[in-house]
């Protein structure tokens, strides 16, 4: 019991922290719901990878999932080229459409092997408690991969997030940065979904940056703040959920984030009123 708690906590901290770091560029680019889109669009790729290869191994499933998720992300812009499609419509259509496709494929599997479907099922709702150490190592690995991708590009990212046109003019390869960010989100959400489920994964990529935003003004500060907040929320959520049997961990992490968000903005609002009165 103890080692599984530690394993879960470690995995969750790495995943949440990674998601928190990625939530910052998403907030600055006003693409907060990209995480939600990716979470839902993972499903068809996940099921498809299994259908094609017959192997239920994390690496294969991950590749398939990331593939369809990335395609969905890339479809946002072309869809909005139509004069009657707006950003919210494109997002809603892709989220629900990709998910429907995934559930459809999943149901096709159902008539062949029941046990198999149950295994893929856990990706939908997420299950922290049932996780193996293998997934934890994947989480750590992906965390190191993405942070390793961010660190050498920090200054380029800084300019790009602040002023994309200026970045282009300075010769920064903004395409590479965008693709990198997209892949990073797909990988991070893929891991997050296994722990907290499809619906809640989005929260990990929205809340942390929001919570840090009123208190920090620099990009680096936002990153550090968001990372710290996510890690703390992961620990808090895990701890709370283990207090009572049958309590799901993922939702408690999200609720922790929601509570932190409320505290953060309540304090900010109070501070503003206090200084206004002076």
């Amino acid at each position, binding site marked *: 019991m103890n080692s599984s708690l530690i394993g879960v906590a470690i995995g969750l901290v790495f995943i949440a922290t990674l998601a928190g770091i990625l939530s910052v560029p998403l907030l600055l680019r006003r693409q907060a719901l990209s995480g939600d889109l990716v979470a839902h669009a993972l499903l068809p790729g996940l099921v498809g990878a299994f259908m094609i290869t017959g192997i239920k191994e994390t690496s294969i499933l991950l590749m398939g999932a990331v593939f369809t998720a990335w395609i969905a992300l890339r479809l946002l812009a072309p869809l909005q080229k139509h004069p009657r499609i*707006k950003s919210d419509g494109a997002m809603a259509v892709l989220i629900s459409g990709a998910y429907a496709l995934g559930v459809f494929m999943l149901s096709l599997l159902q008539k062949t092997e029941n046990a198999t479907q149950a295994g893929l099922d856990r990706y939908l709702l997420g299950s922290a408690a049932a996780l193996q150490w293998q997934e934890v190592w994947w989480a750590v690995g992906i965390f190191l991969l993405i942070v390793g991708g961010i660190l050498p590009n920090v200054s380029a990212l800084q300019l790009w997030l602040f002023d994309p046109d200026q970045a282009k003019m300075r010769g920064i390869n903004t395409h590479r940065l965008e693709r990198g960010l997209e892949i990073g989100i797909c990988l991070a959400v893929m891991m997050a979904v296994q722990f907290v489920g499809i619906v809640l994964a989005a929260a990990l990529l929205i809340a942390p940056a929001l919570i840090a935003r009123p208190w920090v003004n620099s990009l680096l500060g936002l990153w550090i703040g968001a990372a710290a907040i996510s890690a703390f929320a992961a620990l808090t959520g895990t701890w709370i959920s283990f207090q009572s049997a049958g309590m799901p961990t993922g939702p408690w992490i999200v609720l922790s984030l929601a509570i932190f968000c409320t505290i953060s903005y309540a304090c900010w609002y109070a501070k503003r009123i206090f200084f206004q009165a002076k």
Partner: protein
Amino acid sequence: MNLFSFNSIDFQYRQVVALTQASGVIPTGGITGIIGPNGSGKSTLLKILCGLLKPASGTIETQVLPSQMAYVAQRQTVDWDYPATVKEVVEMPLAIQTPWYKRKPQSQVESVHQALALTGLTDFADRQIQALSGGQQQRVFIARALALNLPVLLLDEPFAGVDAPTEAHLFQVLKTVAEQGKTVVMVHHDLSAIPRYFDHLIVLKNTVIANGPTAKVWNPDLLAQVFGISLFQKSNAPEELIP
């Protein structure tokens, strides 16, 4: 009798003060311009006059009810990709006054037809608003206000982003309408043609700097004071100066 008379109006959006102790009058009839630099509270004043906003303090006296005022907002307040034809937009305020089980009255059809003709939109009646240029969109907004046939028209920057021929045409429309006895109040965003356009002026810089007939109020020193620039150089545009 002044159409609008307002006293010590204060208004702020969160931390930003838009209007402070603004007082002035707008006479009945003719074309009144509300001018001033960016952020001087022009749109805010207009919205307060037609009842869309309530001032934090101060009083307003109006000789007509808001239901007798046609308000033309800035163009970007509307999503122009909305599915609708030019005619449908122009008749929208009239159509809603007819219950769904009744046919549209002939007078309403006439008003719409006339408004479209006045603004040069007759050929565009069945075009989707999505397919319109900025100038055409502005015509639609004005046609919609005209179709209502109300005694007072309030317009917020109707010539912003509109090309010169369209502006000239639309101004003619407003002038005709004013000559028919309606009152036109207009927020204008630039300094050109002010003496030609407006019979009366309110010069605003969060408070009313000047208010009255253009002939009395408009001069280069005022400009320099309000806008912080000196527009008139020695050899320039003598016809812009008030004789």
